[in-house]
């Protein structure tokens, strides 16, 4: 290998390869072809050797043949004229006695993707579609899709599309599976103009084929069946029942496609007992997916998340499966946390809180934040869990680990707002940890708590003026605003003690603060307080609407769309497909005016941002707060 690399560095390697390719010794030619392909792989230009490589195409060595075909596929587009030179060998190969070579030739000709070759391809393709060997037939079927992509008219005129449609009745199930993927692909290229439509008799064929073909064929068939509209209830039930055993397949994709089909057919099947049976059968396979590789777990979890929004009770008994393992990758851990909060019920909230407390002691800062947020979501979701959750949070705060304390402060604010007056006893202890808190968001939260519940804290005056020391150095306006608010609230609640502080706060804020928002806020307070203290009271001490846990579900219309695409990329990214992939339909025919491109693109970005926003709130699960006075 070293020698090869050195040789590659030498100048004029292509010349050397040229001589080798024309060598009289077969083994040297073989080695030369290998080196040409190696160079091609690392991005060197070996197109100059085209004719020399081509000379070696006539060989009975299958490896060489495959490598040369690969070379041709790579350079066909840049040198279409030269490819014609190879056509003869291809055509000859499609008549070879070995079915493997026939299939290889027809497959490669399709992959060349060169219009010039089309004329030569038609006749061999027609023969191969009727080949006695199913391996050749199924390869030929895929080739039709390639021809169709290159030139739909040629494919239709030569009757290839019809031939493929007829092949649905092929005796070999692997051919049938390929027919399904080829037709589906052509359908998509056409922009759904109807290359084929499933009907009752073809569905029957597919249901038979699905039992015999490979897992990849099964996926293709399942995907095709999802779009089918059953004639009546009976047929829908029959399809579902015959596909139920697919849930036990070892391939996760087959499992998820089956789940998708069952969920889609929910609207056709009316019998409640059947639907219940389907849901019950779905659970174990979904749980099994969680013991596979982390990547598969991730996709499964994202989908489970969607399924749960449709059927919230589906997995409530399986909560332990979603507990995070120590060595799970972070992306799996976050999804698990989200699912855990989703499936938790009042019955098992207690063990879950203990589990979350353990997570909050880990060292991965982001994961700890997520865990702490999950605790608060549980507290806000379940009245009965609030007590326990607050206990867990105060325990966590007492560890004095900086990031844990910060995050706990932030979420405690929401819990206090959700259950006013219930946890007044805790507030005083929080003040002991003021020194640890330095993240602006956490500081603002703590100051808000102090201002709001000043009557429960013994030395608010000292605490607040202590915090006020750093007012001007404070760079974050949210902290400054919180301080001004807290001073005003403290004054309104206990005018005697608070007077000095509020004066100092408003004076500093209006005269020395650089931030216009903070100045404005202070001015407003000042005028309110001096003009009408009662009005100030009604503004600053107004009853806040309680925090609700919201925005954890996707908007209904988006959810509908995503559940339909369950198991697909869009369900994982939780955005509709049009926002992230190229649409073939555009290319296939729907004209797009140059001048509209810009505006459309703009529109797309805005929707994508909106969708992304929706997704974010789901992930964070942080209840949106109204104005914090």
């Amino acid at each position, binding site marked *: 290998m070293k020698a090869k690399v050195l040789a590659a560095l030498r100048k004029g390697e292509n010349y050397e390869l040229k001589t080798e390719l024309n060598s009289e010794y077969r083994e040297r030619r073989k080695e030369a072809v290998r080196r040409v392909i190696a160079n091609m792989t690392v991005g060197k230009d070996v197109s100059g050797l085209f004719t020399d490589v081509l000379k070696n195409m006539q060989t009975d060595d299958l490896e060489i043949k495959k490598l040369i075909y690969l070379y041709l596929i790579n350079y066909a587009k840049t040198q279409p004229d030269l490819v014609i030179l190879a056509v003869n060998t291809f055509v000859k190969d499609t008549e070879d006695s070995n079915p493997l070579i026939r299939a290889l030739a027809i497959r490669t000709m399709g992959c060349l993707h060169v219009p010039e070759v089309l004329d030569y391809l038609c006749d061999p393709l027609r023969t191969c579609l009727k080949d006695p060997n199913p391996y050749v037939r199924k390869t030929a079927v895929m080739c039709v899709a390639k021809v169709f992509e290159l030139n739909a008219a040629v494919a239709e005129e030569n009757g290839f599309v019809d031939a493929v449609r007829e092949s649905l009745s092929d005796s070999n199930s692997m051919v049938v599976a390929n027919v399904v993927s080829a037709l589906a692909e052509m359908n998509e290229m056409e922009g759904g103009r109807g290359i084929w439509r499933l009907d009752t008799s073809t569905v029957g064929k597919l249901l038979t084929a699905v039992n015999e073909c*490979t897992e990849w064929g099964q996926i293709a068939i399942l995907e095709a069946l999802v779009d089918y509209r059953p004639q009546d209830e009976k047929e829908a039930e029959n399809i579902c029942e015959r596909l139920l055993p697919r849930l036990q397949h070892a391939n996760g994709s087959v499992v998820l496609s089956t789940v998708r089909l069952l969920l889609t057919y929910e609207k056709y099947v009316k019998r409640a007992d059947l639907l219940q049976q389907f849901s019950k059968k779905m659970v174990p396979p979904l749980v099994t997916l969680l*013991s596979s590789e982390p990547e598969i777990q991730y*996709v499964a979890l994202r989908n489970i998340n969607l399924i749960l929004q449709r059927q919230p009770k589906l997995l409530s008994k399986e909560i332990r499966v979603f507990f995070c393992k120590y060595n799970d990758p972070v992306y799996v851990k976050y999804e698990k946390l989200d699912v855990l909060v989703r499936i938790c019920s009042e019955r098992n909230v207690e063990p879950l809180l203990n589990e979350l407390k353990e997570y909050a002691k880990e060292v991965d800062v982001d994961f700890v934040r997520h865990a702490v947020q999950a605790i608060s979501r549980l507290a806000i979701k379940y009245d009965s869990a609030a007590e326990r959750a607050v206990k867990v949070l105060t325990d966590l705060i007492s560890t004095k*680990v900086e990031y844990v304390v910060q995050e706990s402060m932030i979420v405690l604010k929401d819990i206090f707002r959700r259950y006013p007056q219930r946890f007044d006893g805790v507030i005083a202890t929080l003040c002991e940890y003021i020194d640890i808190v330095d993240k602006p968001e956490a500081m603002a939260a703590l100051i808000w708590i102090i201002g709001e519940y000043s009557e429960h804290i013994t030395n608010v005056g000292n605490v607040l003026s202590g915090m006020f020391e750093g007012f001007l150095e404070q760079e974050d306006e949210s902290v400054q605003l919180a301080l001004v608010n807290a001073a005003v609230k403290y004054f309104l609640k206990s005018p005697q003690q608070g007077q000095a502080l509020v004066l100092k706060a408003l004076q500093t804020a209006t005269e020395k603060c650089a931030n216009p928002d903070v100045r404005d806020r202070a001015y407003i307070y000042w005028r309110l307080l001096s003009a009408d203290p009662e009005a100030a009271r009604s503004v600053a001490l107004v009853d806040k609407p309680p925090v609700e846990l919201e925005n954890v579900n996707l908007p209904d219309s988006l959810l509908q769309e995503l559940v339909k695409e369950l198991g*697909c990329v869009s369900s994982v990214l939780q955005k509709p497909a049009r926002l992230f992939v190229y649409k073939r339909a555009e290319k296939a025919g729907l004209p797009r005016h140059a001048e509209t491109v810009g505006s459309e693109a703009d529109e797309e970005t805005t929707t994508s941002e909106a969708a992304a926003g929706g997704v974010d709130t789901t992930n964070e699960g942080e209840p949106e707060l109204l104005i914090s006075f």
Partner: protein
Amino acid sequence: MSIFGTLSNHRDPKTKDAAVRHWTDVKAKADPALPLAGLRLTAEQKAKLDELLKGASVFPDEPTEELLLASLVVVPAFTRYLHSVPSFSDAEPVWSSPLDMVCIHIQRGELIYLGVVSHEAPPLEVLELLEGISQALSEYIGNLSELTVKENFATVYQVLSEMVDSGSVVTTDMSVLRGLVPVPNMVNRMIENVSGIGIRSEVKPDINTSSIPWRSQGIRHSSNEFFVDIVEKIDAIVDSSGSVVAPGLSGMPELLMVMNRPEIMDDVSFHPCVRLAKWESERTIAYVPPDGQFKLGSFHVGMGASPGSLPVYVHASCTTQGANQHTIEISAEAGQCGGKSVEKAYNTRVQCKLVIQYSTRPGGDAATNGGGASTPSSITEPTASAVFVDFEIAGFSASSLKVDSLKMLREAYKIFKGVRYVTKAGSYQSSAANIDFDSPEAAQCATRHWGEIVDIINPKIPSMEQYLPSEKMEEVKGLLDGKKELSKDQASVISPVLLNRFGGDIISKCLAEQK
């Protein structure tokens, strides 16, 4: 569906279209990479690029076609994404790239397998395919690494082209692949090297045309043997899974396997050869096995969380002594395993992380250390440590699942059957308890169990000097106060040093019980 998995696809017109539409994004990504272009491109490509750019250090606002192609690289965009996350293993497996492409990847060993999807497709299918590719390649090449892949590119290409045909998956089944691309082995490599002629048409690659894709027709063996391995893996959450292996059977036999308690297997997933309908209706496993080794299926058995059901117990405790001295103690004991002996039980690895907290000193002594420098103020105890254990018990099935009978239909000959049971550790994770000997709880325990602790410590006093640093030894001598042994009423003055060294076991157990 189409997956451009094997080659980077910047020649694809679709990618180009996308790049035109998102040129600003592409430019934003490509510009910072320009100085590094020399590393990625070959000398010729680099020269060509320089020529196109006409000496500019960034891409122009309006690209020409060649420039588009030069800048257009989904795979480099993905590498940049990989580098933007803390560690490769943290990268989300499904990532939407700015070029209307979705990158789906898995990481196996030191290699990352990336599938690029240009339109809506099931990501699980891609993931399963990548997994299949990774497995197939390791079967063909053996030890997979960047170097071995490069050395065996000819094989890699052949295998990939048989697995994926212009984006649709053909097969990932090894028994099919072996027929299409011969697995290189020592013998034919030798022949090739010595004689200069490769094994070609002698071994005619054969294709399977039967309706049973996993087994080719006309297999003949001189002896027919069938072995079933039931391998149970115990996970920490006490789940188990098993697999079955079968070599060598002639013809097209159909096997019927009956398990003793099929009802306890709840989450079952099978190899495609198993007739799922039959399993649904009769709970028997009927299948035509592929030739050679294969995994018949896997199942889960919930064993309940009852203590005593695990064959091995591991206790781990982590003790903290002062600021930077930590001791991790691990002990294992055998539990219930039906009288069989536990073989090869070994502790594989201990994962533990130390948190070092830094506090920033205000700029008081700026002159001495450059202002606001950080010094570790405290090191908290190792948190969330976990111990992973491996073990193996032959001839024992943890779930008590047995093969009741194994019958062969459709072929006349007799087979030799064998069934073997093995129980292994799956993901057996035991979390370590964190024990702080300075804590009041530990002191309480020490007081309560002082009698036992003293009995452990006293015999060790003469040799203590070897273990303890001198200032600690002074402390101990102070406690001894000239005597040879500690007395039983000295509980209140006991030093954490001693507890940590000698009373650790008792206290950690006691604390664990309290919890």
